[in-house]
């Protein structure tokens, strides 16, 4: 629980979400007039975190810094497990995840501790409303915040107790094997996070080397590589898989 001394009387633009209604009300706020006198709804930055996901600390400090810069933008920190309805609505399957929302629309999304991407997307979406000229992202991102590839991969693997790297999304897989593995996890009532390796070439190639595994999909449980679709199928058949899945990842 944050106990910062509130210096100014106005509400802070970055808050830890306590109640769903706060988020709902903020998203429904009528927009201010932008330069061209049209009313534009403000973009709200929603950052989903969990206390067991190590990389959230890094992302949280980036969120805090961004909030200091974009003072007219509202930032929410949402502890994903305490707000299941909101997490479901935004399809949050793993943390850290940053969502940029404009009323009912999602105008931006960053999965994982991709600091430069988070900074870039917030700048693109919020610069104008804050009266800041959009700068190229390289000017804004402090070097020490960007984790090296191995750290980033480790963070991605640990984003959820059960984490699968697939081609496409869980709702729309783009390969037969990815579709099969997602289907099996769903059938077994397992809660999992996913990462679409088609969206990130660096992760796609890097993870193969990191884990010494040449193909996708890849399933990780508690940060450890379990294997691809064949192995998962075999383990379901033998009954071995469910024993590896931590209790919090089994849907009730």
């Amino acid at each position, binding site marked *: 629980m944050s106990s910062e001394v509130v210096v100014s009387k106005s509400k802070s633009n970055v808050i830890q979400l306590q109640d769903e209604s706060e988020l709902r009300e903020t998203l429904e706020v009528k927009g201010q007039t932008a330069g061209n006198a049209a009313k534009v709804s403000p973009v709200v930055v929603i950052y989903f975190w969990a206390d067991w996901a190590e990389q959230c600390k890094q992302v949280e400090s980036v969120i805090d810094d961004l909030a200091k810069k974009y003072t007219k933008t509202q930032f929410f920190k949402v502890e994903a497990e305490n707000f299941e309805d909101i997490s479901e609505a935004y399809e949050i399957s793993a943390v850290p995840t940053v969502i940029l929302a404009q009323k009912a629309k999602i105008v931006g999304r960053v999965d994982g501790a991709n600091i430069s991407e988070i900074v870039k997307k917030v700048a693109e979406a919020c610069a104008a409303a804050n009266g800041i000229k959009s700068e190229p992202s390289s000017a804004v991102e402090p070097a020490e915040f960007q984790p090296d590839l191995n750290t980033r991969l480790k963070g991605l693997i640990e984003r959820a107790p059960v984490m699968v790297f697939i081609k496409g999304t869980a709702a729309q897989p*783009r390969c037969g094997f990815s579709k*099969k593995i997602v289907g099996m996890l769903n059938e077994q009532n397992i809660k999992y996070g996913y990462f679409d390796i088609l969206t990130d070439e660096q992760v796609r190639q890097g993870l193969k080397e990191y884990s010494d595994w*040449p*193909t996708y999909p890849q399933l990780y449980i508690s940060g450890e590589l379990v294997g691809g679709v*064949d*192995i998962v199928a*075999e383990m379901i058949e033998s009954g071995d898989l469910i024993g590896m899945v931590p209790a919090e990842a089994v849907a009730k």
Partner: protein
Amino acid sequence: MSMHSKPSPGPLEQLIRKNIADTFKPTVLLIENESYKHRHHAAMRDVDSTETHFRVTVVSEMFSGQSRIQRQRLIYSLLKAEMAMEGGIHALTLVTKTPEEYDIVPVVPKPDIS
């Protein structure tokens, strides 16, 4: 069901067979060319090869004491070159069992990837 007899193994399939046979001395080695199932997939559109997807079943005593990942890693590293090359293996479905395990489940269920 096709009326034609199975096409003879292509060069890549023969290579897979030789590599696995030499290394694992398998009691059972089944190689099924499943490339036709993926021919129309987006990723295969510009690929001319008819040897892109294989389902390989290897039964060998050498897998004894090895986890599933270890077994598959052995096969992947054996076929590293064939997977890395232009027009090489695009994907493998692997079934790796010891003779004891294979006897318990003699009919290996085929996944439906459609």
